[in-house]
């Protein structure tokens, strides 16, 4: 899933300063799961913005809508009636949600209320961790299903650096050293030979950015 965090309220207020009527759009998929931009978060941001504007003596009218996926144009088109009533749209989707709205309503200023952080998974209650860099050249077969490209700070392919600190990463003692995890997993599976191999430099152009995949349904 895509993980995002809401921008600070002050940054959002600065973006929408001057507008009197806006639409806040939530997204019902990834950012709902990571508590950043679902229906509840739309309601919270809405009331925070109203309150703050009132305090400053400004009237701000806010419409709310949450669609299942902002990254699907057909679903975004359903926002048309509401979009026509406002001066600006504040998207609580990830970056891939903001852009379809901006594309479908090219006359409408669209602002991001979130910072999209990574592709990841929940690690515990309210904690999400990055697990995939979307590099386009999956390496997980060689590392026991633990990605060093994203879980090692330096993205090393051939084993740990000298910064392994009691199995943690030298730059953050809260984070596991990916290569310690990989070593243990491969050892457990009797596959340490995979770690003894030399892996040549990565192909950083495995996906030519911006990425595009053309495929047919199976």
């Amino acid at each position, binding site marked *: 899933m895509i993980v995002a965090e809401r921008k600070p309220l002050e940054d959002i207020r600065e973006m929408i300063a001057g507008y009197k009527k806006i639409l806040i759009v939530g997204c019902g998929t990834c950012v709902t799961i990571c508590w950043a931009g679902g229906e509840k978060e739309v309601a919270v941001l809405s009331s925070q913005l109203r309150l703050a504007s009132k305090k400053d003596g400004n009237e701000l009218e806010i419409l709310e809508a949450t669609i299942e996926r902002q990254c699907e144009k057909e679903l975004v088109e359903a926002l048309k009636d509401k979009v026509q009533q406002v001066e600006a749209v504040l998207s609580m989707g990830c970056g891939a949600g903001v852009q379809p709205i901006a594309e479908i309503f090219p006359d409408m200023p669209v602002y991001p209320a979130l910072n999209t952080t990574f592709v990841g998974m929940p690690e515990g209650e309210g904690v999400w961790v990055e697990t995939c860099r979307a590099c386009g050249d999956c390496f997980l077969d060689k590392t026991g299903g633990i990605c060093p490209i994203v879980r090692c700070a330096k993205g090393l392919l051939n084993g740990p650096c000298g910064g*392994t600190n009691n199995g943690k990463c030298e730059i953050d003692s809260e984070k596991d050293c990916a290569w*310690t995890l*990989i070593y243990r997993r491969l050892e457990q599976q009797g596959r340490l030979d995979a770690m003894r191999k030399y892996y040549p*430099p990565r192909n950083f152009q495995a996906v030519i950015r911006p990425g595009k995949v053309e495929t047919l349904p199976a």
Partner: protein
Amino acid sequence: MAKAFKETLNSGKFVVTSEIGPPKGTNLEKLIHHIDLLKDKVDALNVTDNQSSVMRFPSLGTCLLIKERGGEPILQMTCRDRNRMALEADLLFAYTRGIKNVLCLTGDFITIGDHKEARAVFDLDSLQLLHMVRILQSGKDLGGNELDGAVEFCAGATVTPEANPIEPQLIKFEKKVQAGAEFFQTQAIYDLDNFKKFMKYVRGLDKNIKILAGIVLLASAGMAKYMNENTPGVFVPQVLIDEMATAEKGKRVQKGIEIAGRLIRQIKEEAICDGVHIMAIGREEVVPDILAAGGL
């Protein structure tokens, strides 16, 4: 003219290298003084490459200065700041200017340094860099293209004998050996019993692997404790911390020199490994005293 480091390595003598940290800025006075102070006292001088992710005068430029002044430089190269093309180009240039030794490092992460928002490159890792040197040596570049004039380097690498856990570190070490690393300079070591165990493993692997034990000058008991808590792969035994604590203010560095000298003597007398790499970390001035204390 200094003797080529490769020759020194193969001569069977106890090898001694030290390290120069370039300045932040263009005032090279102190740097040149340090080069002149050390160039004839050690077999080769490493030059750090934006050490600890702090932007400084370049390693390559400092190596040229060492060369000009008659010393034997070891170019430290990290993968943090340059992609493969930039690293290759720097090596072509270094070779043409008589720099024949390179130490292949991954490099510290960006955020520990003084340009915390910079992009960390890591296009290659230390092992791939080592392979790259060998590829350039074969007359090709990493794109598979022919070079008009190849390079020849004595290429080394690093190892952390006190890494925890040690097994993944040793797997990488073995990969560096297979990639043809001609020498290893270790992370700081203080516990010679632990280091002897590491050396027993190394000798069991291949008798010809050249290991230079990392000797980092202790400047105070506080520094020793700090390193134990914060520097990965460094372990200062309590007896040495206690010994540092007995030194009065103003005599602590002297005590550190004494300890470093003692470690060097024991390593040399017992032929534990092939030499030492002395890192005074900003106190290049006292390296001659460490050498004297070590009987070198």
